């Protein structure tokens, strides 16, 4: 990569993920407007904003699932803007989806094993039995156990309860051994009492993992985030520590106000 040889001077290596001037519009609708963010290594950041603010779109841009109209994305200081989504994943940028995007017909063990095998680069091997990859299977199983999915990992994904499916979203992302993990409303649609379990899992993730999560529930946000980014109308409205954000009257107005009928 020549990008690696020429790191952007404004994006230090202490930042696991950064964006510069990131913009995207669908026709006349601007959903990302000149976004510049830094996620330091080991961050626990929350991304909040009213419905339709462009939070999911921002994750799509960062992971390469959408191409920006302009701007750059840096992963560990390297410009990855031109890389395909799977190449970014291999460099350690993983995500989960707001709406379950799982392998309905595979069971959890197969799905996570697939992700592990992809990372290990063995999925091209059409001549060997999957069971030969004992290490990969055991690694997948460990991830599943860690996420309390061990006892249902032989059940087809489509038969799993919804809350389990949300956990499987995270398990699939973890199987890629990410350095940066972007969680798009990990507890979306999960009843309040179960959403705590999901965030316990999130909180228990390794400290060197850089984390950005989208969440609407402010209690959860204040409890788990060390830093909050507020997105409104596709632009960064403000950012700061939970205390700063809680005290910001502007945030109250645009965000919390909008939530009342959102």
């Amino acid at each position, binding site marked *: 990569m020549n990008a690696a040889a020429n790191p952007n001077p404004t994006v230090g290596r202490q930042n696991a993920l950064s964006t510069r001037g990131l913009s995207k519009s669908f026709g006349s609708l601007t959903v990302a407007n000149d976004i510049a963010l830094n996620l330091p290594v080991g961050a626990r950041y929350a991304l909040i904003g009213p419905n339709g603010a462009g939070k999911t779109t921002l994750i799509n841009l960062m*992971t*390469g*699932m959408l191409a920006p109209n302009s701007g750059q994305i840096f992963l560990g200081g390297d410009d990855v803007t031109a890389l*395909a*989504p*799977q190449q970014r*994943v*291999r460099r350690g940028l*993983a*995500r989960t*989806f707001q709406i379950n*995007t*799982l*392998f*309905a*017909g*595979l069971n959890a*063990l*197969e*799905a996570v*094993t*697939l*992700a592990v*095998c*992809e*990372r290990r680069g*063995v*999925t*091209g*091997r*059409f*001549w*060997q*039995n*999957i*069971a030969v*990859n*004992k290490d*990969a*299977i*055991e690694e*997948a*199983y460990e991830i599943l*156990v860690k996420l*309390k999915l*061990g*006892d249902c*990992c*032989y059940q087809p994904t489509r038969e799993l309860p919804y809350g389990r499916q949300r956990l499987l979203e995270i398990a*699939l*992302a973890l*199987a*890629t051994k990410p350095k940066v993990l972007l969680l798009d409303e990990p507890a979306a649609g999960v009843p309040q009492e179960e959403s705590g379990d999901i965030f316990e899992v999130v909180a228990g993730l390794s400290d060197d993992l850089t984390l950005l999560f989208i969440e609407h529930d402010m209690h959860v946000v204040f409890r788990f985030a060390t830093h909050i980014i507020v997105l409104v109308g596709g632009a960064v409205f403000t950012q700061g520590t939970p205390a700063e954000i809680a005290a910001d009257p502007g945030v109250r107005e645009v965000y919390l106000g909008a939530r009342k009928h959102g």
Partner: protein
Amino acid sequence: MTDIPTVAPQLYLQSRSRWRPIEIVFWLATLLPFWLFPDYLSLASQIAVASLFALSLDLILGYAGVVSLGHAAFFGLGAYTAGLFSIYVWGEVFTGLIAGAAVAALVGYASSFIISRFRHLTLIMITLGLGLLLHEAANSAGWLTGGSDGLQGIEVWKVAGLFSFDLYGVTAYSYTLGVLFVVFLAARRLINSPFGLALRGIRENFVRMPAIGADSNSHIRKVYTISAALAGVAGALIAQTTQTVSLEALSFERSADVLVMLVLGGAGRLYGGLIGAAVFMIARDQFSGIAPQYWYFWIGILLVVVVMLLPNGILGGLSKIFARWSRR
């Protein structure tokens, strides 16, 4: 909550690829025609070829979710290559098979770069278009292919220097069945490999694959090439056992037929293509008295019924009935 399933994960995955008794019964049953239907051995060998062709389509359609309306291109390539090979090189059958597979694989590999870029309607159109293109090309290149008269003068040697192709089709069926079995073993291995798992991933959720770091296009290119090679083997077999190749080998009808066989049996199941091919070919043989357009009437009805009522084909329906029955 216990986190310990009854079987260890690795053993569990291993057990899924174990041979089941019903499979052994199935393969033993393929030997029955030698004794029970000695007059139908040439039909049986055609079924074996059709099964192999359907199996090759299953790899891309049933496992990777790539819908092709032009798979006959590779069947025809294999058939013409094997035919020409026996005319211009020699009549040894196994090298002929390899030649047919190699040419089909080569063209499959080249076109896979096109195929892997498309999804949905455009993909269907591209496969259809490439298939028709090849059909037209073979039609125009009469000096090589014999054009609409078909390729004449194919002569093959005895299989392994021992068994000549006889009138009753004993050799033909033994030969095609043997090749089918070997290819089936390979396909079975592939399905149970890490690569096979990745293919199922592509079929189950194309969008998620890049998010777990998978390069779906490279998987699709690979399986398309393999599938083309197997279709080429099927084509080569038909050229060697019938000793003619006609343009029909490249036709849209052949692409449509193999699709029908596969969905009839059940796509995405290793035995779907085999069962579908057998049912289709036997039915066609039984109804051979009726004009082809009326045969296609029944095929049409069958397709409507399968789509509306039997979405996973015969095998899917059977396994559902079996599941319901065993639950009681």
